């Protein structure tokens, strides 16, 4: 039976190999990398993104004229499909741009140890950004750019409500949200006191969990997102919606084109750093009149959500010198700045703090000056197995189907068997 299974797998691999990425061509000889390598990227989307990457690859070719890069464009929603098919076909991409949560599940299996020193890298990048690419003490990926989520508020609406400063605790946050909420005579919500629905619910919950002093996992990899502190994070979300009625389910959603904090329909929000570009495009007067403020969500400790894109190379790649050269190039200051500017993100390279891009973008500047409060999700090999299960559990609490503790306990039970990674 095993022989038959192996035969079928072999045929399947052969069949699926038709659509996979091209194999690396040739080994680097001597000191200079050469040959063809494949790159999968989820961040250079659309024609603008493609143009930015092409410019960067042209610069890379000037440094390494004998290396040819074949980019494969995708987005984060489709990245796993690309990776799955490439792995099944046995033709993994030489260089992969991945999210932070991807590193522990892939470390040592799909991703190669880059053989770099964490302490040395921390001189170039923020230590928290470096840690995102480290697993079991080995560096598997270099940070390119970061996606931060933090508190955003409307100074003008705060002033109108007589509130002088952003919240410093969960209790203050709830109080502010209640006072800032506006409903019409029929009870219909006109302005949300605090918008926690425009951002991915998992990322909102994680930010609140960290601020409440909780953690996703214990240092030895056990589930911890249902600990009493962690539950407080979800309780805050639930209280804002169900008790304080500072927001209604359905009032807004992830990906909505009308963003409440920009359109005066929310006074506070937990938002992404790239909202700055949206404000510039939709209502630049809010920036000109200094109506937008930022704050780090704080209770037991300050916490910002740190997502991001990392450059890594395949453990099974046949042209590692060229792949490593591209990984280093994509995580360099110039490439990091280009990628970040295109998406309104935070460059991972610390020296870019003095760049005009960072100076002119208040959200990016704020994020870079608060990197000590940054927390990243994942951290265990089985993270990708449970990552998508958070949304339903969180929603069941927000909808009142379960208490926050019940929802998280159920999720923890479901996750416990999977976090070790099969």
């Amino acid at each position, binding site marked *: 039976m095993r022989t038959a299974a192996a035969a079928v*797998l072999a045929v399947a691999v052969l069949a699926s190999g038709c659509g996979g990425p091209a194999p690396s061509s040739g080994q680097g000889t001597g000191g200079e990398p050469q040959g063809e390598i494949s790159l999968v990227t989820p961040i250079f989307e659309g024609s603008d993104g493609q143009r930015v990457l092409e410019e960067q690859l042209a610069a890379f070719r000037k440094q390494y004229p004998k290396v040819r890069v074949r980019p494969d464009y995708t987005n984060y929603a489709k990245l*796993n499909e690309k990776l799955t098919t490439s792995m099944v076909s046995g033709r993994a991409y030489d260089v992969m741009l991945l999210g932070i949560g991807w590193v522990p599940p892939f470390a040592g299996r799909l991703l190669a140890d880059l053989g770099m020193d964490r302490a040395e890298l921390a001189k170039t990048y923020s230590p928290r950004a470096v840690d995102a690419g480290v697993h079991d003490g080995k560096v598997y990926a270099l940070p390119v750019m970061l996606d931060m989520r933090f508190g955003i508020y409307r100074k003008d609406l705060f002033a109108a409500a007589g509130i002088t400063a952003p919240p410093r605790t969960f209790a203050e946050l709830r109080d502010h949200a209640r006072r800032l909420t506006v409903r019409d005579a029929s009870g219909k919500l006109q302005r949300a006191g605090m918008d926690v629905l425009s951002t991915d619910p998992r990322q909102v919950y994680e930010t609140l969990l960290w601020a409440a002093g909780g953690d996703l996992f214990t240092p030895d990899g056990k589930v911890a997102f249902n600990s009493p502190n962690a539950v407080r994070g979800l309780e805050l979300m639930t209280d804002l919606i169900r008790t304080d009625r500072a927001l209604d389910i*359905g009032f807004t959603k992830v990906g909505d084109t009308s963003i409440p904090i920009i359109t005066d329909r929310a006074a506070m929000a937990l938002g992404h750093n790239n909202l700055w570009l949206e404000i510039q495009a939709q209502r630049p007067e809010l920036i000109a009149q200094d109506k937008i403020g930022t704050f780090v969500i704080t209770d037991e400790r300050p916490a910002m959500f740190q997502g991001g894109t990392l450059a890594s190379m395949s453990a099974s790649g046949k042209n590692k010198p060229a792949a490593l050269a591209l990984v280093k190039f994509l995580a360099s200051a110039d490439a990091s700045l280009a990628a970040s500017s295109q998406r309104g993100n935070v460059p991972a390279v610390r020296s870019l703090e003095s760049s005009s891009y960072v100076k002119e973008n208040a959200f990016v500047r704020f994020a870079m000056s608060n990197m000590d409060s940054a927390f990243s999700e994942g951290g265990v090999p089985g993270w990708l*197995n449970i990552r998508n299960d958070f949304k339903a559990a969180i929603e069941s609490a927000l909808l009142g189907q379960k208490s926050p503790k019940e929802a998280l306990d159920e999720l923890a039970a479901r996750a416990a068997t999977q976090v070790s990674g099969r």
Partner: protein
Amino acid sequence: MTAVLERRKALRRKDRGRRRVAALMLAPAVIHLVWWIGIPVVSTFVLAFLQYDIFAGTAEWVGFDNFARIFSDDVWNASIWHTLVYTFFTVPVAMVIAAVVAVLLNVKMRARAWYRAAFFLPHVTATVAIALVWMWMFEPRIGLFNALLEMVGVTGPAWLADPDWAMTSVIVVSIWKGIGVKMLIYLAALQSIPHELYEAADLDGASGPRKFFSITLPLLKPATFFVFVVSMIDAFQVFDQVYILTPDGGPANSTTVMTYEIYQAAFGRFDISTASAQSVVLFGFLMVLTVISRRLTGKDDSHVSS
């Protein structure tokens, strides 16, 4: 005698030649089917009984463990239930509406072709485009449905964000999208009913409803069974409109369906073995439905032809 043998030889040669031509002409289709359907189907069945580590490229025989695991998963069981609910409501409702529309559009009337085209249009329009338009109509704040409800003093729900309404909303879109092709099949069936039957009924003084229930409906039976089978299979395979209207399984997994869970297992969790076991279960559902329906259809066909 020799002449007879020669003729037989010539016939055999001709026969071999014909077979070669037939094989040659069939080859592209056979290769295509084996490559794109045969191998994946066999692989899926084998993988369903293995624990395949996509990273290491290793596989271990685990028997029915994958099946035991998926049936102990509440979300997978919920997805089966949601698929059944979705099928139960979309198939019969859309069939009834399609049959009524087909009968109405089978009579002579002005702009009949335009009406037919209008009903058929959703079927040929991209599901993504349809789903996006409906998303706007379902939008709780500025959407069409809640605006209409507001005019009569009713506050509409957050259709796609409320677990009590999300599946209903998906079903409504699917019914609307599915009417066109069913109507087309019914129209073809209606036009194949001999006119003489209606003329004879007229002579006997049969009323319109009597003619519908005694002639039209019985003679639409084979078409009805065909539409039923195809619609059931289609409904069990629903993915795109659910995925776009209610991403990530909908609010609190209220609209997650079997195909979405298979997709999640394979591409969200890199768990090809679980996805294969789930696919085999879906295959089982479809096989049982097809066999039942085929038997019913077969009986009906033989009845009609006799």
